[in-house]
């Protein structure tokens, strides 16, 4: 290859990276503006309580089966994977406590958030995107209804409240999965299992995980709503909104998790 070609390719690559970064920063800026608008609209009346409770039901209640299955499998698999290593050191009795700590501190919040980003985030992105394309959002606006307040504020609030609750639910079901996992090889009563598990958990293990889950929920709602609400016209943009919502929300969950671990470590 000629040296000139390498130089030209390098310029093209730099230009592509530059454009990508420009778009990424633009998106971050727009989402920030969207978030600021959320807090402004949140505080101003009228308050959409009915729509908020409907969203809580849709986001929370309808996600229970998926979270339950995922939580159960998480607990079961974690127990089965950890057991041989602990057995080597004769520390099988630590299994309930270890699984409980892993689930509560890290695995249940992150996995539940990722599952929710896939189910709830994409659902919100697709629903609002579809409403935008079919002019339903415009129809609300011309009927003197604030669509941002009715559609966006209620959904972000609902995800912020429901994701931590789903995480608690996943914690509980995950522990049941772990109990089944333990009983595949040994016989432990349910009361003894939970007594061993809970004795290893401190208040400090629950609070950071809950705060982290609140942030996960907020960003899943915010990113889903942003992508749907700002979708372009055309049916293609509905799929794009759903897809982008999942990708951005999943990435954000990992970034928040990384920051949370660092902050907790400092404390």
């Amino acid at each position, binding site marked *: 290859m000629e040296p000139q070609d390498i130089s030209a390719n390098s310029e093209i690559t730099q230009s592509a990276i530059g454009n990508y970064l420009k778009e990424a920063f633009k998106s971050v800026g727009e989402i920030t503006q969207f978030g600021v608008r959320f807090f402004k609209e949140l505080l101003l009346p009228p308050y959409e309580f009915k729509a908020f409770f409907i969203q809580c039901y849709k986001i929370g209640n309808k996600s229970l089966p998926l979270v339950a299955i995922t939580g159960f499998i998480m607990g079961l698999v974690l127990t089965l994977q950890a057991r041989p290593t602990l057995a080597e050191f004769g520390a099988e009795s630590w299994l309930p406590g270890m699984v409980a700590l892993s689930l509560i501190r890290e695995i249940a919040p992150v996995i539940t958030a990722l599952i929710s980003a896939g189910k709830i985030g994409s659902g919100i992105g697709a629903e609002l995107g*579809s409403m935008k394309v079919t*002019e*339903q959002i415009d129809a609300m606006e*011309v*009927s*003197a*209804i604030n669509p941002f307040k009715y559609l966006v504020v209620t959904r972000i609030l609902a995800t912020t409240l429901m994701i931590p609750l789903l995480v608690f639910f996943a914690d509980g079901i995950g522990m049941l999965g772990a109990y089944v996992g333990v009983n595949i090889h040994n016989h432990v009563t349910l009361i003894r299992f939970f007594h061993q598990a809970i004795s290893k958990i401190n208040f400090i293990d629950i609070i950071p995980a809950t705060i982290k889950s609140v942030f996960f929920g907020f960003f899943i709602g915010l990113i889903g709503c942003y992508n749907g609400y700002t979708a372009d016209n055309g049916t293609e943009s509905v799929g794009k909104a759903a897809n982008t919502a999942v990708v951005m929300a999943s990435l954000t969950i990992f970034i928040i998790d990384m920051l949370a671990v660092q902050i907790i470590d400092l404390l």
Partner: protein
Amino acid sequence: MQVQELPIPIATDSGLIKDVIQIKNLHKTFTDREHEVLKGVNLTVAKGENVVVLGKSGTGKSVLIKCIVGLMAIDEGEINVFGKNISELSEKELNDVRVKMGFLFQSAALYDSMTVRENLNFPLRRSLKHLSAKEKEERILEQLHNVGLESAIDKMPSALSGGMRKRIGLARTLILKPEIMLYDEPTTGLDTITSKEISELILSVQKKNKTTSIIITHDMECAKLTADRIVILKDGFIVAEGTYSSLENSQDEWVRSFFNK
């Protein structure tokens, strides 16, 4: 292009001419497309008048009515509705004006997640909170009767045909008893018979409720049936204006081409 200016006085009930919509030197550009769609549109619509806007696709007809209702911000010029400059209104003031306007979208824009009853009840719950549940139900039934679809009250929008959706969309728009109606291609995508039914419905609405209407359409049968006055948009300007018969017999070949002549 010869511009025809045919001012048509419209007498209101009081015998006075009153313009409810005044558009002065309206400019609208889409920055992402770097394309100026409207380049100085001037239009006045008198109370009780039905104005049909014609023009090729992409000439800014829908943009024009979206600017009137405040869905799109204008770049330059002035839009006065009921004497109020839309661009200078606060959100609350704009909503007060919007309640007096109805907008029938091209796709009818029914809320997919709600039944027909809920679709009609939604604007009522928001804008006419003082009405009792019984009064709201009566108003819903009255509007569905007007469009001949009482039987569809508990259906979901996905269970309705294109024509039925348009009728329900019209019923939802009329439920707040607007004084101005804006129709965005009301007959697009419908068969000839249904198109005629919708056009007749628009006309009967106008006669019954004494509404002022702007109708965007490509359907010349609809234009012929509903228009008191027709304006034609081209290249961001209104290039011709007059009654259906005057434009049909225009000296300008391009204008006549709309009428298949």
